[in-house]
């Protein structure tokens, strides 16, 4: 199954493959023909001592010519096969990466990032070995072996037929080796993974081991695993010694015996062609190296298949966000947001705890709705749903009266702007981080956005201004500065709706002021859903929703909520009370 699927990737390269195979066959042909020329030389010139200068020169030059031709063709076909293999792996990589782009957020919640990354890079790299090392080598070697047989048949049909019995012997050897080695190899890998796990765990838990004085015990346990691994490694060595090189060499001796006896017996009854004997011995000499090579690639083959299985497993994960590309998608013109009885659970089977329970509210165009509550109360979930990161479990979200699910990706992403809590910057420049790939955001828009959020002063101080390169995650900037760039990124798209997840990171006073100013400006004329961690920043909100365990427990304006003297009131007092005491 896995193999067939991998082979399917060859299909688009049919043409290149044909060319490469053709080169391979030509190269092999010119390679195998050498001994035939030698045979002609021996039998027609050397043995009868008839030296015709003209035909000798032709023989010699064609021998050398073929040699050179073969080398050139060989080189070309090796490169072509490699190219094809590399392109296949690239395609596979792109497929996985693209698939991952469209996976639902649930998958990211549940799968460690490391696992996903290693699917895209390391596992595909292992598959590369399959195509470059195994497949190409197998094709090349099999063609070469075929070529040798064709030449042998050309020289002497009967002897060549005798030599055919070598094939089943080799095939049986390979099959039985693969069969036994798969088991042994699997056990070896398993022991190795135990060994690594034990090592990893012991290194990480060393302080506990030492505090509990269990060093001796862990040493012993490790030694046991170490011994087990050694035992399997030895089994592997034994197996390889039994089946691979020594065995193949034995078969070579057998082949030599067949050839010698054939000619020897024949010579007892009549004359033989010494040249043919020479050519056969020469072929046999070169016939067995490919066999050795293929045997050694077998274990690699196994490893690549396992990697391929993992990659396909990810590709088969069908939890992808359905892409909405309706060309007649309704447009967001006003920015009115309605949550109608929205409930949501992060578990797809909806048996898990509900993160939101019957949430209903309306944000009218231009209004700011603030969400407050403690960690885990459901604030961020509301933002996640509005961004369509997850589908709602029950109820409905409407924007301008249109169900969220009917809006095209393009419309939604361009009209709803997110300011995430963690200011995430891509590797690139400030300018590229603000513009992203949006064609409508050009240099002027970037400049406008930057000046809108008043980030130009600090950007102006950077040696290269907007073109300042950002290292990994913008590590050279302060978190407040990164925040401002993210604001500019959002505002550059001129969204109708803003989803603000307020940063909790500590920033210096100056930047803090810039951030607050920018936020106030950004909210003007836009419908805003703001997740607030500090109540001071949302006192002017049109509606404040107080969330607790996924439910709206209080709602109203700042003044109304204070008058209620409920949860909001307590929070407010708390934050203000503690602010004075904070050192």
């Amino acid at each position, binding site marked *: 199954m896995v193999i067939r699927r991998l082979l399917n990737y060859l299909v688009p390269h049919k043409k290149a493959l044909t060319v490469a195979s053709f080169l391979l066959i030509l190269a092999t042909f010119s390679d195998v023909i050498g001994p035939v020329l030698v045979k002609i030389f021996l039998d027609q010139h050397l043995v009868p001592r008839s030296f015709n200068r003209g035909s000798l020169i032709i023989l010699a030059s064609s021998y050398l010519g073929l040699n050179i031709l073969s*080398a050139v063709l060989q080189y070309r076909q090796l*490169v072509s096969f490699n190219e094809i293999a590399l392109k296949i792996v690239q395609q596979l990589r792109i497929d996985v990466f693209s698939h991952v782009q469209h996976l639902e957020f649930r998958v990211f919640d549940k799968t460690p990032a490391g696992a*996903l990354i290693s699917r895209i890079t390391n596992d595909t790299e292992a598959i590369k070995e399959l195509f470059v090392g195994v497949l190409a080598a197998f094709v090349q070697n099999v063609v070469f072996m075929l070529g040798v047989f064709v030449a042998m048949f050309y020289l002497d049909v009967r002897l060549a037929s005798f030599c055919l019995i070598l094939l089943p012997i080799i095939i049986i050897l390979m099959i039985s080796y693969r069969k036994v080695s798969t088991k042994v190899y699997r056990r070896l890998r398993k022991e190795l993974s135990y060994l690594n796990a034990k090592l990893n765990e012991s290194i990480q838990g060393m302080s506990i081991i030492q505090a509990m004085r269990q060093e001796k015990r862990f040493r012993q346990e490790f030694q046991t695993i170490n011994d087990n691994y050694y035992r399997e490694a030895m089994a592997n060595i034994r197996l390889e010694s039994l089946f691979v090189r020594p065995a193949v060499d034995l078969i070579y001796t057998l082949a030599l015996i067949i050839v010698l006896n054939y000619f020897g017996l024949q010579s007892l009854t009549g004359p033989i062609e010494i040249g043919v004997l020479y050519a056969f011995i020469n072929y046999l000499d070169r016939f067995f190296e490919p066999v050795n090579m293929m045997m050694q690639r077998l274990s690699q083959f196994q490893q690549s298949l396992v990697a391929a299985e993992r990659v396909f497993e990810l590709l088969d994960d069908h939890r992808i966000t359905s892409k909405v590309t309706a060309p007649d998608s309704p447009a967001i013109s006003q920015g009115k947001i309605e949550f109608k009885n929205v409930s949501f659970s992060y578990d797809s089977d909806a048996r898990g705890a509900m993160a939101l329970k019957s949430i209903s509210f309306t944000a009218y165009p231009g209004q700011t709705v603030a969400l407050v509550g403690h960690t885990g109360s459901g604030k961020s979930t509301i933002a996640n749903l509005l961004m369509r990161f997850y589908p709602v479990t029950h109820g409905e979200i409407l924007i301008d009266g249109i169900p969220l699910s009917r809006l095209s990706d393009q419309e939604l992403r361009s009209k709803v702007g997110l300011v995430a809590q963690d200011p995430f910057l891509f590797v690139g420049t400030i300018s590229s981080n603000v513009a992203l790939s949006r064609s409508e955001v050009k240099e002027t828009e970037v400049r406008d956005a930057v000046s809108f959020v008043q980030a130009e002063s600090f950007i102006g101080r950077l040696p290269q201004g907007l073109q300042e390169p950002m290292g990994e995650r913008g590590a050279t900037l302060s978190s407040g500065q990164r925040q401002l760039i993210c604001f500019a990124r959002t505002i550059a798209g001129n969204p109708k709706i803003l989803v603000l997840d307020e940063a909790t990171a500590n920033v210096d006073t100056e930047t803090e002021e810039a951030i607050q100013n920018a936020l106030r400006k950004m909210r003007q004329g836009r419908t805003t859903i703001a997740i607030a961690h500090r109540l001071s920043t949302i006192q002017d909100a049109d509606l404040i929703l107080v969330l607790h365990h996924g439910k709206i427990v209080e709602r109203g304006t700042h003044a109304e909520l204070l008058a209620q003297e409920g*949860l909001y009131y*307590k929070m407010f007092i708390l934050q203000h009370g503690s602010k004075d005491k904070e050192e």
Partner: protein
Amino acid sequence: MLLFKDLMWFFKLEKKSYISGIVVLVLVAFLNLFPPYVVRVIIDEISRGVLTSVSLLHWTLLLVGTGLVVYVLRFSWRLMIFGAASRLSRLLRKQLFDHFTLMSPQFYQKQRTGDLMAHATNDIQAVEMTAGMGVLTLVDSLTTGGLVILSMALFISWKLTLITLLPMPLMAWSTSRYGTMLHKRFHRAQAAFSDLNDKVLENINGMRVVKAFGEEEAELEAFRSLSEDVVEKNIAVAKVDALFDPTIQLIIGISFFLALIFGSIDVINGSLTFGQLTQFTIYLGQFIWPMLAFGWLFNILERGRASYDRVDTLLKINQKINEKDGALDRFDNGDVTFAKASFTYPGGKTPILQNISVRVRQGQTLGIVGKTGSGKTTFLRLLLREFDLNDGDLQLGGTSVYDVTLQSLRSKIGYVPQDHFLFSTTIIENIAMGKPEASFAEIQNAAGIADIHDDILGFPEGYNTLVGDRGVTLSGGQKQRISIARALLLEPEILILDDSLSAVDAKTEKSILESLRQMRAQKTTFISSHRLSAVEEADLIIVLKDGQISEQGSHSELMALNGWYAGTYRRQQLESLLEEGAEH
């Protein structure tokens, strides 16, 4: 070659395997000269017309015999040499692991787990390769290569040998040139691959932003161009890599050509028989491998050398906690005294703890609070002697901890670290970590006090449930409580809870603390916490700020002081009110 000298200690250890392995290898090299000789004899007998069926049978049987003997010999040297190499890697792994268990936390602060793992796996593998493949290649290329040349030169024709070997240096030269080119291009390919890796990492980490701005296609485009770059760089590698085989093939072809031309001339003037010519070409074929192997040898040695150096450096790091000569192995009681203790991390500039003086009597509980980074964890780890004080003293039961053995010190202490670490084994083994001989009743009792017993019974296999990847996923709170049970099982003289209740809810925290008070009335307990409710009932609370004690006293004294403690306490009270607030 230097590496072989470094590894001499091991070769001596495995003297028997290596000497017999090498003897067998040499034997095989000799025996391999035989089949070509048989070919020559038979061809010559055929061409002279003197071959008989008897002599044919005779030679055939000899060939069969040699073949079988060589098979057995080849099998056995592999076991001897590769087996010995495998034992070397086992030994090195053991040495490394044993070494790891002796290293102090300082060592683990400097070394990343990934690096340590790499040393214990990849590097050791490279050394194993040297001790196996390296030895084989060296011996084999020297003996086979030498013997083949000798036989060609002595028994056939030294002139012909010289002529046919003429192109060989060209082969050595070109392959080594390709090698250098390959090295460079390979590095570039690796760099491109690591760029690709970084991109994937960035993409996965920034998935929210990617999705929010609908950047999926742009990301794919960026990925596509990076993967294109990887392909390009790899094709550049392939272009050099593909040079090896054809070049070798070409040069060998030329060698054969020379052998035939000049050999034929010799045959014509009668100084060479036909069989000898054939024998010669077979030998020529046998010479290819040692030639290639020799080039390869340097590669193996270079890698092995670098790896062995890394492993050796690691083994030579001496960051043990030293014990004084004649260290005592007992304490009189559970009093703990910090006397003007100061500590700076090795290599660090700012002191982590300064002039700390605290006295805790046996049976008392000390609460340690303060902001993140104020020195709480360091304070506790000093007790375990994970690090040693720069100044001042730390006494247990009136004896300096530096005057007693580590074993006796640590046997007195039960430690629950901040980053609760569980081993991927069963729950029962995790709890019994420090006391494998504990009875089931003891274990259940400890789990009960840590308020995790009921949780455990709820797991599919109770106490025998596996933890981690292969078993249940535990919540942070559950892990913490198991860590606590693990420490409680030891019934330690001194119990250290380093912010160990942060992930359990207020109610559970209360019940655990209550049980602890009852059970440990006669013993000393240290509790550090962010949540002040955990230390409220402590006999003495110290507030650390920038490594110094800024406030100390009982809860009521500190509240009266109206400083950081009182302010934080009030704020936390309100917060917890909030959490529960909406319930009613």
